[in-house]
């Protein structure tokens, strides 16, 4: 469906629905938080019912997440030694490859190899779809690194990690994109950087967004779109079909693991939906690329908690950061929405609407690229809060998606309802759950004994207090477990000591991070209630 994924220039009913849906989620969040606190003070017994029901729901929700986090971790560990390129090559000689795989079956140890079993299943799915995998030699990677202005150290880190990758760097095209106002001396430094890497890569390009008075400003989507268009021109000039180009976007400073591009290539090749999907790595940090302290990573993991657990929820999967997709798909859907505050999620929904609900996210079971913060601890908090605010801006997708759903006849109704409710629930829950679990629960827990309606509640007040606090503690422990699952394993020689120090740091820092994210989400949502959008043009 053709739909303008934008909140600009709306009139009439569209404007009304835009505002309605903008207000809905944050208003619900505030209503629940304030309502819970006020109810806890005024009618603690009634509030305790809701708190108990919510806390119990949260614990089961965390249980569900932990199961799948364990699954994700297990799957990542399972695939840790996988030779993705070997599998990718195998796809292009499928008959011989099947023979090799079948021969492997005779090896008793191979029988236990779950990874191979999954791989075989993927091959069968590809065969059933009657599609052939694209040729590995034809595939190219396009890496877009966009920023307002160049930070040469961070750029070098990212490009170095790509070159160290076990995917041939000669098949990687890197395009750096910056705002048009970049100073001349930076432009020359960037040029020198490009030259340094040019011969190690397929191509290294740099583009400065054109200096034109237009709706595209110096903000991120515009710069990235600019890079993508330039890249498309480049590939067309090289007569490389965009269907064979896999686009990935990384932030300057992101370090990509060695297997990342190989894994991405294999997944692209084996998936029948490669031209109607994006590929999302799982939010589990890879220790091998970790260079920050446990404090930084714990804080980051805690702050990314809600986002990560929702991303890991297989039913909710949407793109959120460091994803990849076909350049052809990107061009077909019209690139990233130019006025979107959260381009990472917006592109998914834009494509979802474009393909009438037929666009999906395919998980990559490989470590998540980590951005390293260079500042001191206070700067870390500021930077992290800013980053979480950026991520929370995905709340602006909801009203646009909902307007599209109202107008999209070809998207099945059940899909609309399910997607809309999960989108609303994810945003709503991420902003309220720490407040409800850790703050609002105190009032009925402490005050429910203040009032009673009969002897049963008189004597059961201690029970209510005990249950609320118990669920609170269980919820806290589970959230910390989830945060820990996200973190890489500390491979210190003295494991016991490492575990103790990790645990001591983990609790307060992770909780701080958890609240940082919710606070950011609430801030962004509240601004939206008052019509102050966070996108480029406001």
């Amino acid at each position: 469906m053709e739909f303008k994924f934008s909140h600009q220039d709306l009139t009439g009913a569209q404007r009304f629905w835009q505002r309605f849906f903008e207000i809905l989620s944050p208003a619900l969040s505030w209503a629940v938080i304030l309502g819970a606190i006020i109810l806890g003070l005024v009618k603690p017994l009634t509030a305790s019912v809701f708190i108990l029901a919510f806390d119990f729901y949260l614990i089961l929700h965390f249980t569900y997440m932990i199961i799948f986090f364990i699954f994700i971790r297990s799957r990542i560990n399972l695939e840790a030694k996988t030779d993705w390129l070997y599998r990718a090559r195998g796809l292009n000689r499928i008959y011989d490859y099947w023979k090799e795989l079948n021969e492997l079956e005779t090896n008793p140890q191979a029988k236990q190899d779950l990874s191979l079993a999954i791989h075989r299943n993927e091959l069968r799915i590809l065969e059933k779809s009657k599609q052939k995998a694209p040729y590995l030699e034809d595939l190219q990677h396009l890496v877009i690194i966009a920023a307002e202005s160049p930070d040469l150290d961070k750029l070098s880190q990212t490009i170095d990690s790509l070159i160290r990758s076990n995917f041939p760097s000669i098949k990687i095209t890197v395009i750096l994109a910056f705002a048009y106002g970049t100073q001349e001396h930076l432009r020359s430094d960037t040029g020198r950087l490009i030259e340094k890497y040019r011969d190690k890569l397929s191509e290294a390009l740099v583009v400065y967004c054109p200096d034109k008075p237009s709706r595209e400003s110096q903000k991120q989507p515009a710069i990235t779109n600019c890079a993508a268009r330039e890249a498309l021109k480049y590939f067309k000039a090289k007569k490389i079909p965009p269907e064979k180009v896999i686009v990935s976007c990384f932030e300057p400073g992101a370090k990509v693991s060695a297997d990342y591009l190989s894994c991405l290539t294999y997944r692209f090749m084996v998936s029948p939906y490669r031209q109607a999907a994006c590929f999302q790595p799982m939010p589990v940090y890879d220790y091998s690329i970790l260079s920050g302290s446990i404090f930084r990573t714990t804080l980051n993991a805690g702050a990314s908690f809600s986002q990560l657990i929702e991303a890991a929820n297989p039913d909710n999967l949407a793109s959120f950061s460091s994803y990849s997709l076909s350049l052809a798909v990107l061009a077909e859907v019209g690139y990233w929405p130019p006025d979107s505050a959260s381009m990472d999620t917006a592109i998914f929904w834009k494509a979802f609407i474009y393909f009438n609900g037929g666009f999906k996210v395919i998980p990559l079971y490989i470590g998540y690229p980590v951005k390293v913060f260079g500042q001191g601890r206070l700067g870390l908090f500021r930077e992290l809060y800013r980053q979480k605010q950026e991520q929370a801006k995905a709340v602006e997708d909801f009203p646009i998606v909902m307007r599209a759903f109202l107008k999209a006849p070809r998207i099945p109704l059940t899909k609309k309802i399910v997607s809309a409710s999960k989108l609303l629930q994810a945003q709503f829950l991420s902003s309220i759950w720490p407040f409800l679990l850790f703050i609002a629960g105190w009032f009925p827990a402490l005050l429910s004994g203040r009032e009673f309606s009969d002897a049963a509640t008189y004597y059961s007040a201690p029970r209510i207090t005990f249950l609320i606090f118990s669920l609170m503690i269980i919820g806290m422990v589970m959230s910390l477990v989830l945060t820990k699952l996200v973190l890489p394993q500390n491979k210190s020689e003295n494991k016991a000591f490492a575990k103790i120090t990790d645990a001591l740091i983990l609790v307060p820092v992770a909780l701080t991070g958890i609240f940082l994210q919710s606070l950011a989400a609430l801030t962004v949502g509240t601004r939206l209630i008052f019509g102050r959008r966070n996108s480029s043009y406001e």
Partner: protein
Amino acid sequence: MLYFRKVTLLILTATYLIFCPLLILFAFGRIAKPVRDSSGLIFLSTNPPGAKIFLEGRRFSEKTPAGLKGMLAGTYDLVVSLDGYKPWRNKIQVFPNLASVFDKIILVPESWKSKELSNGSFLQLTSLPGSRFFILNQGSQLRDYYSFDSENEELTPFIRPGSNLAHFEVAALHQVEESSQVIFEARSSADSKYFLANLEKGYVNIKDVSRFFPGKPGHILWDPEAGDYLFTFSQGSLNKIDLAAYALEENYLDNLRGYGLFNRSIYVLKDINTLLRLDYNRNNQRVIFDDPILGNFLFGQEGFFEVKPLDDKIIFFINQEGKLVSNLSPNRWVEKGVRGLEFHLQTKRALFWIKDLAAVIDYRPLFLNEARPLSSALPKRYTFYTQGKDITQGFWAYQGAYAVLNDSDRVLLFELKDENEASPEEIVKISKGSAVHYRESLKKLYYLNPADNKLNCVEIIPAQQGRKEPLSFKEYLNSKN
């Protein structure tokens, strides 16, 4: 993987739908109840109603009148509070399968509101206990005397202006509890007469009954229910006056040491210390007790005793020195000084006071089917006030749950909730030595304002709109059934 996801989601959803309600029910004690079957009940009813209830500092969701069922046995701190009133506090004991009933709680206002009832000032107020009338006088002459009807709040002079009785000086007033008539001795320069004043609504009916008083009587008594019969006692003899027949029967009974009237019977204490009961025609004579030794022990050798039956079994005797004894053990209550004795027939209790002390004699244990826990079957005396200065009057209030005392220059309210000393609540200040009148049916106290001696009244318990009395425990049980 898809099936695993769906199954996991289904299991967790089912877990939530099944266990969440159970969790909430468990939290609220609806399952795995923390309260055992053998529990007690606390019932509270206040006047005025609508007060908040706090048990051990925790607020009950209902307001008074309310019952708290299922309370475990034990002691609880209870506070009942209402805006504008002082909080009512008590430490209550709950017993298994029993109800702890507090259905006569008066919430004391922060400040009592009094109402002025007269324009003029008065010298004195004379209470007629149990009657709707009381007497006010502005001077000592008969023309200065008025009766006040508390029902209609009307003031009626005893005599019309210009009456030839106007200048008679009132020397003494005789009254009987719950009677609206008084006998007063009045003197003029030439004469000394006895008058019977019947205080009826709208006028005072005065009769000259001097012919029935040949000499100065030592004691005058009549039955409020049979007002035509009067009895006068003098020097061991009892005279009977029949007002209807206009006849005097001298020496109706003699050789007496005391007498009393109750329930259309006359109780006489013979000089040999035996107590008889007979009707007004001297028939149906019955010996109540005939124990010379006990009688001698109780009454001594001489002196007049007024016989005051609480009921047909419990009889008190009080002499002019204030000695108080009764026919049932323990017989001797107070050796001397008793200034007044008031009965509460429904609860079988007697209120008495001396100058600085007020106490209650409680005969309820004798009438319970089962003895109260940890108590005996003898009547109990408990002193609830020991800080008195000059207690002159006492009244039962609010169906025997409270007592009102006139102590020197103030009127005090006491809650008789247990057998310990009660804290007084000062209702009003009055002139020192002044009397007050309390009307239980109206819950009103009448007094002379010490500042201007005008007649005022204060409602001890405000009238409730829509109901005459707060919900009693019986009504509460009926409503629950």
